[in-house]
């Protein structure tokens, strides 16, 4: 940021005119709203924001914000975001998607993004279902949920544990928020964007259409136990005992951020490289 005062924008300035396709009551509205408040608070110029997504209901997010966006293919938000960040490290890059996009088809990229620790934020809006395709089980769906025709006897598999896997994969910032707690969520997103490195924010974002029972989350969420968030052992314990409903920053440490293009100017010329090929 330079010395001139950057005009503070209202959160509304970060919203585009495009009407979301989400159902009334969808948790993702709250995430959109919290994100606009966060960006306003941080005074990021709208043109310096890039929201990168995959496929799914929550992946429609980029068009609903007024900055740059890329609505990519299923499961590939993280590498898209990583490539953009590598080329343009000065931008505020936010990757977003849902539980299917992020933990099923995108699972491999999730592991390596945690390892790589590039400086951008990853928001997963988890509603434990595939909403866009009209109600199949996702990796975070309970094993006994039998409402999908594809898995009429339930998934038969134990749930994917995003926080535990993020920690094991070496993530440097792990937080959980809830769409029904917008001010808490705004606070978490702010910390995530300010965190130097890969910041994973797992947002419980209920699907009112295919998982109406998720209304009960309101009574089930609770703050995570307090403690030194930089301590890996404490985080491991927290996450081991996690009921999936604990909100807050579960783990945050400063680790070396993946350095890439733009962080060092080149000091050589193509002519010299060509000259080395001559005999």
């Amino acid at each position: 940021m330079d010395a001139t005062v950057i005009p503070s924008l209202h959160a509304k300035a970060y919203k585009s005119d495009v009407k979301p396709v989400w159902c009334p009551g969808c948790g993702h509205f709250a995430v959109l709203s919290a994100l606009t408040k966060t960006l306003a608070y941080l005074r990021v110029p709208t043109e310096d924001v890039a929201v990168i997504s995959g496929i799914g209901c929550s992946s429609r997010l980029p068009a609903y914000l007024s900055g740059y966006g890329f609505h990519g293919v299923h499961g590939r938000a993280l590498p898209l975001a990583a490539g953009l960040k590598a080329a343009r490290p000065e931008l505020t890059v936010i990757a977003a998607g849902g539980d299917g996009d992020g933990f099923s088809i995108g699972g491999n990229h999730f592991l390596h993004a945690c390892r790589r620790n590039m400086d951008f934020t990853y928001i997963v809006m988890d509603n434990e279902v595939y909403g866009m395709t009209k109600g199949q089980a996702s990796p975070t769906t309970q094993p006994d949920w039998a409402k999908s025709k594809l898995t009429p006897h339930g998934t038969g598999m134990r749930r994917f544990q995003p926080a535990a896997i993020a920690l094991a994969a070496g993530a440097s910032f792990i937080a959980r928020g809830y769409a029904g707690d917008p001010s808490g969520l705004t606070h978490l997103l702010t910390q995530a964007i300010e965190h130097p490195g890969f910041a994973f924010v797992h947002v419980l974002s209920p699907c009112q259409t295919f998982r109406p029972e998720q209304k009960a989350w309101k009574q089930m969420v609770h703050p995570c136990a307090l403690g030194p968030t930089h301590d890996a052992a404490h985080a491991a314990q927290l996450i081991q005992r996690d009921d999936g409903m604990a909100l807050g920053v579960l783990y945050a440490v400063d680790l070396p951020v993946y350095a890439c293009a733009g962080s060092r100017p080149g000091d050589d010329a193509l002519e010299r490289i060509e000259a080395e090929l001559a005999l």
Partner: protein
Amino acid sequence: MTLSLDPRTTPVAAAITGSGGSGAVTAGLILLDAVAHAGFYGLLSRSSGPQIRGGESAVMLRFGPTPVRCLGDRYDLLAALDWGNHGRFSDEIPLDRDSLILADPQAGEIPDAVLASGAAHRALGLRASAKERPGGRANMVAVGAVGALVGLPLAALLTGAERTLRRKGEGVVAAARACITAGFGSIDAHGAPSALLVDPGQRPRRWSINGNEAAGLGALRGGVRFVAAYPITPASEMLEWLAPRLERLGGALVQAEDELASINMIIGSAFGGVPSLTATSGPGLSLMMEGIGLAVASETPVVVADVMRGGPSTGIPTKSEQSDLDIALYGLHGDAPHLVLAALGIADCVLTLEWATRLAEHLQTAAIVLSDQSIGQSRAIIDPPPALSPPSSAGPGQGRRTAKAGADYHRYALTADGVSPMSLPGQAGCAYTADGLEHGPHGTPSSVAADHWAQLDKRRAKLEGFDFGHAWAEIDGDGPLCLVTWGSSRGAALEAAERLRAAGRPTRVIGLRLLAPLRRDALLGAIGEAEVLVIELNHGAQLFHYLHAQRALPPGARSLARPGPLPLRPAEIAAACDRGAAPVPSIRATPGRGR
């Protein structure tokens, strides 16, 4: 027996084989260097056993007074350091009664299969000679002997050894020089007086380069400064060459976790404004198809280099073939026109990659560039390739059409030539969301028919309406016979054409560099009234059927399509021309209905 070889007038071909640790490859590299220092052009290929390290290897060298474009039909000389697993290489090193085998009697009997060629043979005590010198090695004695037999001057051999072995220290260099001198001296009555071809002070300094390096250089010349890639045989060396050089130029290479990450990372970096590339082989290209489609639909420029191996599936990773044309052309779901180019040889990798990068950037699309293992992993002595010359419309300075901030910016605005101004993140007043979903001019997703049709028309028209200039093909010669080919097969086709001309059959060779969009009228114009033979190294006659489907071939055009792993040879091509009335492939071809 000595060979009467004179590399000043006719190319000479020599091969060296040996089991793991025998140093055949080092010997080959030294000889190639010597070739260059003696003023010749050369081409060096290698082959090895399947072991991860230390397997048997063979080097095949051909050199002469003019650029060497293929390995030819036969070898004048085979020097065997030993006979371990030699059978593996017999198809790749054809010998005949005019060939000479140089073998160490201490290495055992020459296998019958090798003698069956009718080649003459000569014993040389490589090991015995090496033993007499401290630190001596049989492969260095062989370098000297081979050099003498093929007409290379001793000074060039010694310089080659010094340059190649410098890193291993003075002792090793000195031992090598002693052995080379001994080997050289053991050959009396040389085939031809060895002499420098040209005074080295006067000629331009030539390059020693392999195809993968040349492709990397072309990409850098085209402006590529970001690469994300996953290692794969036979493309990894391109990435290894690029990694430190990108850093020197202020760019970067990221080793991605898989090919899906690779293609999506370069889409992200290109979206951010940096010309970007990935390199892979067939299996990786298959994985990238969805991503390439995203680049096409979102109009984000990317370059994907495919160094083809034997296919299908895992195939033959270390051998060459030209069987990825179909997937490069047709691998995207939906109607997704894009650029497909192919390098016409090692030196041409520089131009083709530079051109592909500039085209992709200007036309805001994906460019798939086909190379192959024989190009990528063979090393040649070449003249420094010229810079991409105007008036190619996508020449230096063209770049991306940039957007100006203004009210109501439409990223995918319909323009006269189909190319829309492209804004970059960070630019105020013209933000947009790129999308793989079909969209209207603004970029907002749309399933409206008019939007889909308009955007499809735009994405096709921007390619088909573009003036690609003269670089779509290299055309040599003229005549009633026309060989149409691509990639590494062009070398053998050129040599076959030389023989046909010498035998009184003027022949034209068209080597296609731009495969999609196809310059159909230009190709038909270049063919004229000639009789056509389409030449390619794959089982399914992919190029032939593509050109036929595009109605870019005259009636009666014939196909010479053979799969790898062995390269097409000039004699095969010339013989196919002689056969005259070879049948037109029947399966998918229908008799042409004219142009």
